[in-house]
């Protein structure tokens, strides 16, 4: 499965459009991570635990999108977009969407 945020994949031709596919995850942080983050809120800087947590959830959303695309018989997802939003205190949603297509090497 090829993923791209461009509208085409170089060296290939789109032979079939299958429609939009999407994936999402809502993740909450846990208390252990919160204590460390509380310290960081005093001195500032990167919150490595949160960076990892969001990278993981983004991967999960992408996997869900890919599963949907695979079920449709696609071999690529194009024009992929990500969006992140804070849904409630302590929880964030990651949403990813794109267009499932079938591509063929030229």
């Amino acid at each position, binding site marked *: 499965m*090829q*993923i*791209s*945020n*461009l*509208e*085409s*994949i*170089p*060296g290939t031709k789109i032979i079939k459009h299958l429609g939009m596919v999407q994936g999402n995850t809502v993740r*909450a*942080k846990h208390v252990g991570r*919160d204590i460390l*983050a509380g310290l*960081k*809120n*005093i*001195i*500032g*800087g*990167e*919150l490595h635990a*949160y*960076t990892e947590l*969001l*990278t993981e959830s*983004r991967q999960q959303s992408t996997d869900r999108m890919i599963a949907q695309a695979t079920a449709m018989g696609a071999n690529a997802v194009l024009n*992929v*977009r*990500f*969006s*992140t*939003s*804070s849904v409630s*205190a*302590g*929880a*964030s949603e990651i949403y990813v969407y794109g267009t499932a297509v079938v591509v063929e090497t030229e």
Partner: protein
Amino acid sequence: MIFSFIIPISLVLLGFIVGRINEARHFADLEEREDSFKHVVLSDLKTIPEGMNRSQFVSGSVVISIDYYKRIIASIRMFFGGEVASYQSLLTRARREAILRMIDEADDYDSKYIANIRIETSKVFENDEGIGSLEVYAYGTALS
């Protein structure tokens, strides 16, 4: 009684000193790494240059938090209005870091060109007091 003053003041001082040292160190580190990736072309256009026949999705992200001192400064700013320079430098740092991580990934694929770069900034894991962290996510397509 006296503790109710000492604690916030020491937190402001701690935030100011450590925050400032970290910021200076981070900026120096950013300069150096950006210099080593000077040959990579970054673009937010969708066009694919001639001769590129391989593409790979690349991304980089960073979550940062605002220090105590900057929060206080910003809350004073919110009273008078105007530019909040302390947050500005923080966002600049986060954005440059996220872009560098994306380039790092592209470098693993021997790519010298990243097309259609999108950068997204969002507030994550906000707590009841409204103190959240900021995430910057940069993504694009590495071409080679």
